[in-house]
């Protein structure tokens, strides 16, 4: 271990408290019992689909698009996952097939 057990524990604690802080923030601003303004309720409603869209991009952020393999494994796997899902609506099938295809593509190309 590069630092003492005590320091290690403190580092973990600092990361834990900071992370929890980001997650608890809206609940501190709007604690239980306090009226939630309409605009916040509205944001809560529309943020979910927007965040899902952002997270798809977030997961693909390190894809190389401008040089080989031009993001092809990612594009193919995302397309297969999405199309299979539109067709069969089976979570595990779509995710399983997309993931296996992606693994095969990046390990073989």
């Amino acid at each position, binding site marked *: 271990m590069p630092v003492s057990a005590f320091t290690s524990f403190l580092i973990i604690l600092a990361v834990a408290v900071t992370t929890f802080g980001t997650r608890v923030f809206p609940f501190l601003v709007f604690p239980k019992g306090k009226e939630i303004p309409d605009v916040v309720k509205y944001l809560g409603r529309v943020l979910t689909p927007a965040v899902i869209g952002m997270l798809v991009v977030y997961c693909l*952020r390190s894809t190389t698009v401008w040089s080989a393999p031009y993001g092809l494994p990612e594009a193919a796997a995302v397309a297969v996952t999405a199309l299979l899902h539109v067709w069969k609506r089976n979570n595990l099938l779509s995710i399983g097939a997309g993931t296996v295809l992606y693994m095969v593509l990046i390990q073989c190309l």
Partner: protein
Amino acid sequence: MKGYRKGYRKAFQRAFPYTIPVLTGYLFIGIAFGVMFSEKGYSFLWAGLMSLLVYAGSGQYLAVNFFAPGVSFLQVIFLTLMVNIRHIFYGISLLEKFHGMGKKRWYMIFGLTDETYSLLCTTKVPEDVEEDQFLLAVSLLDQSYWVIGSMIGGIAGNFLPFDSEGIDFAMTALFVVIFVEQWMEKKNRAPEVIGVLAACFCLQIFGADGFVLPAMLLITLLLFVGRKRLEGGEEEPCR
């Protein structure tokens, strides 16, 4: 009391299938974290402890670098804040749901990872279980995969029986599937498009390491500006 317990048992049984994609993803990115941490000289117990107390994917990957002589706690806090700042937006969608959960809500808030947030917001609770119990089951199952994965990584990560490169795509695929599910409801389409376009735009400008916060701010701004046009379907939040 007995009925209460039985309710939880059923809630876990019902919740489990929804969490299988997270199981796949968390087990493997958890293992990767355990391996990284053990290479720094920390046993699997340390990896487990961190996954128990912190419970954040990218946050913990980054945190591995903090364990070095002369570490600055200010820097630890600042960098952690930068990686995880997107989480301050997640709770907004779950305020009412969590407020109705009593003391359990503190754990629910603690467990708000990207994946758990997405499941909690988009999964229709089966009719034969209590909503509270079902949501708690989803959160607890997800974290257990993460803790177990990181401990496996700490013990034997370098001896995986097959080449697992790319298996973390399960996480991407999970979000793609949720994206498609949301798309089926017309009122979600505009926000989804805003999310994707704003993220792509900010990715181009700020690069892969720093685009999330500007993207979240831009998304919030656009949703705010477009409120009149977007507020067609008045329904309960987070569905």
